[in-house]
């Protein structure tokens, strides 16, 4: 192991060490441990961010090509760490109010973030899988963190069972892909599928699976060096199922509303932004790097899933009266928009997904921070009607939520608008006219249910007494960052977009 190797995984290493430290701190400190744990967690996240700077300028592959600390991974690391910091800030008051064990919560959050980082940086399906499992297992526990509340335990169990199934699909897909190509390295799979590398010897190359002679002869060895297309098609399908579940794209979205509703609100925000972004990072890397040369036309799979996600998400959201469920269905729909850009299968499309994830993270974190704050003890006030008259009772809170909701609709001057604009532009440039029309149609449908909340906030009288506790400083901080960031992305998107484009080109052009 060289120092370069260490630098490539330094953010994850720091997160893991800090997570363990937080865990022990919670166990061995008796007084004021909530504050201490939160503080150490924040420091750890900032330290991981600082360690990220060492990865710039991007270096070559680390750990014999297993880890790629490229601009793509850099971008997503920044996003994950930013999300985690905002989640920690908005969690502190929530944890105190719900009397949850802060130490375990923060430790799990850090572990999940470390797993997500590995998902973005992994150039090997095995490492991707491990990263995915680290983040998933932590999220399963986090979802059920309000263990005295039935709905929370129920959602954790649902998430765990369905998630395990999805993981099994993914793993089966990985196994078949390995069987067909003889390697799990994404970049090597790409070469094999393009016909530039003989699958029989792929395992022998320096980037190969064991470095020595291949233990298992790939299926292609028996087909005279030809990669079996049926196996590849099956592998793509299975991997698609596993990843579509994680990004909550239809038709694998069934878990989303229940889990989002039952999870503690800050955890819901983390699932909707962090987990989704990590799954998309893996999705993008596997499909645009490894399966780029596949004969099987996987964009058609994405096309169907994108259309289904948009319609299922938006139509079901129309009937929701619970804010968390509403945003869950909205999350499905937004996964659909991102899949539209993904279907374009171009560097611009990849960059658009990345940009959209940033915009979506900002607006969603802001919205969920308001919901967590408004929910009060035991999350009692999460219905849309509880927001009636909020615009007059707490104008600033309502203002921040309005900015986030307007961005979710896609009103100009917000990040959400530009995100959608770039999505449809990328789709049109790849001649996906039908998909673009369906996407624009869906944006129009979506406006209705977001506006319903806005109307409740500004144009209706409260039907029952909803307490309006003062906003804690940390939450105010989160709201300022989210609302400000959303507007900033809508006015000056260039820096984020250019970086995303640079990372996307690096992802596609390299190797």
């Amino acid at each position, binding site marked *: 192991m060289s120092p370069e190797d260490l630098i490539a995984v330094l953010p994850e290493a720091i997160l893991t060490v800090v997570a363990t430290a937080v865990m022990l701190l919670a166990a061995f400190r008796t007084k004021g441990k909530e504050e201490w744990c939160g503080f150490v967690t924040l420091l750890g996240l900032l330290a991981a961010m600082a360690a990220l700077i060492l990865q710039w300028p991007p270096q070559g592959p680390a750990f014999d090509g297993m880890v790629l600390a490229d601009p793509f991974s850099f971008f997503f690391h920044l996003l994950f760490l930013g999300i985690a910091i905002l989640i920690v800030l908005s969690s502190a008051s929530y944890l105190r109010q719900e009397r949850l064990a802060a*130490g375990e919560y923060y430790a799990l959050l850090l572990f999940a973030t470390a797993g997500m980082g590995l998902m973005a940086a992994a150039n090997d399906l095995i490492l991707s899988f491990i990263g995915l499992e680290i983040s998933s297992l932590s999220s399963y526990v986090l979802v059920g963190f309000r263990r005295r509340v039935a709905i929370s335990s129920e959602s954790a169990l649902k998430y765990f069972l369905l998630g395990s199934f999805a993981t099994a699909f993914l793993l089966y897909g990985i196994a078949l892909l390995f069987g067909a190509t003889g390697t799990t390295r994404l970049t090597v799979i790409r070469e094999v599928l393009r016909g530039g590398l003989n699958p029989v010897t792929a395992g022998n190359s320096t980037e190969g699976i064991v470095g020595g002679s291949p233990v298992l002869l790939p299926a292609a060895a028996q087909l005279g060096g030809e990669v079996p297309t049926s196996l590849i098609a099956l592998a793509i399908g299975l991997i698609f199922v596993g990843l579509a579940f994680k990004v909550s794209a239809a038709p694998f979205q069934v878990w989303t509303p229940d889990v989002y509703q039952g999870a503690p609100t800050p955890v819901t925000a983390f699932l909707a932004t962090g987990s989704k972004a990590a799954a998309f990072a893996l999705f993008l890397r596997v499909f645009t790097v490894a399966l780029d040369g596949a004969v099987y036309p996987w964009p058609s799979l994405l096309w169907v899933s994108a259309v289904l996600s948009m319609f299922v998400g938006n139509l079901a959201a129309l009937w929701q009266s619970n804010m968390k469920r509403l945003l869950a269905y909205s999350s499905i729909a937004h996964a659909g928009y991102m899949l539209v850009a993904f279907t374009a299968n171009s560097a611009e499309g990849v960059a658009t997904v990345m940009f959209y994830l940033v915009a979506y993270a900002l607006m969603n974190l802001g919205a969920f921070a308001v919901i967590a704050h408004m929910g009060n003890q035991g999350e009692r006030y999460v219905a849309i009607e509880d927001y009636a008259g909020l615009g007059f009772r707490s104008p600033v809170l309502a203002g921040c939520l309005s900015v986030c909701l307007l961005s979710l609709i896609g009103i100009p001057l917000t990040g959400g608008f530009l995100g959608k604009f770039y999505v449809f532009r990328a789709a049109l440039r790849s001649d996906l006219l039908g998909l673009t029309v369906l996407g624009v149609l869906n944006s129009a449908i979506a406006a209705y249910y977001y506006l319903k909340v806005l109307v409740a906030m500004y144009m209706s009288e409260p039907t029952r007494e909803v307490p309006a506790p003062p906003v804690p400083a940390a939450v105010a901080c989160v709201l300022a960052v989210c609302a400000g960031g959303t507007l900033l992305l809508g006015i000056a998107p260039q820096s984020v977009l250019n970086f995303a484009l640079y990372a996307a080109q690096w992802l596609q052009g390299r190797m």
Partner: protein
Amino acid sequence: MPNTYFQNYLVILLMLGVVVLLAGGMIVLSYLLGQHRPSRVKLSPYECGMVPTGDARQRFSVKFYLVAMVFILFDVEIVFLYPWAVIFHELRMFGFLEMLLFLLLVGAGFAYLWKMGVLDWTGSDTGGPAGGTGGSPAGGRAGGPE
């Protein structure tokens, strides 16, 4: 070109057949050849030679599950230690430090569990020594309705 790839699976199919024949044959043969003198004792569920008492479907203390999880923790540790020990010399210092790190992490997890009172079976069931409000996993009325 004939697709010879799937012919490899013929061997597995063959083995599957042999397995079914052998296992099925044993059961069928012992059923046909053996004597059948059922009695009350013979038909009762077998429980280590003990006379079964009570119903098995009852609530267990959640602590059993926690201990089982601690067991898995160390089980996995051993799973990693064995292959590591086999190629210990080839891995040199790097392997040693890596395993030390791994053991430290496992140890940290164990220290956490210990401190949270998972191994504490004697005390009252109001939680471990560090159990704050809703803090300890072993806290609360174990297994009881919330």
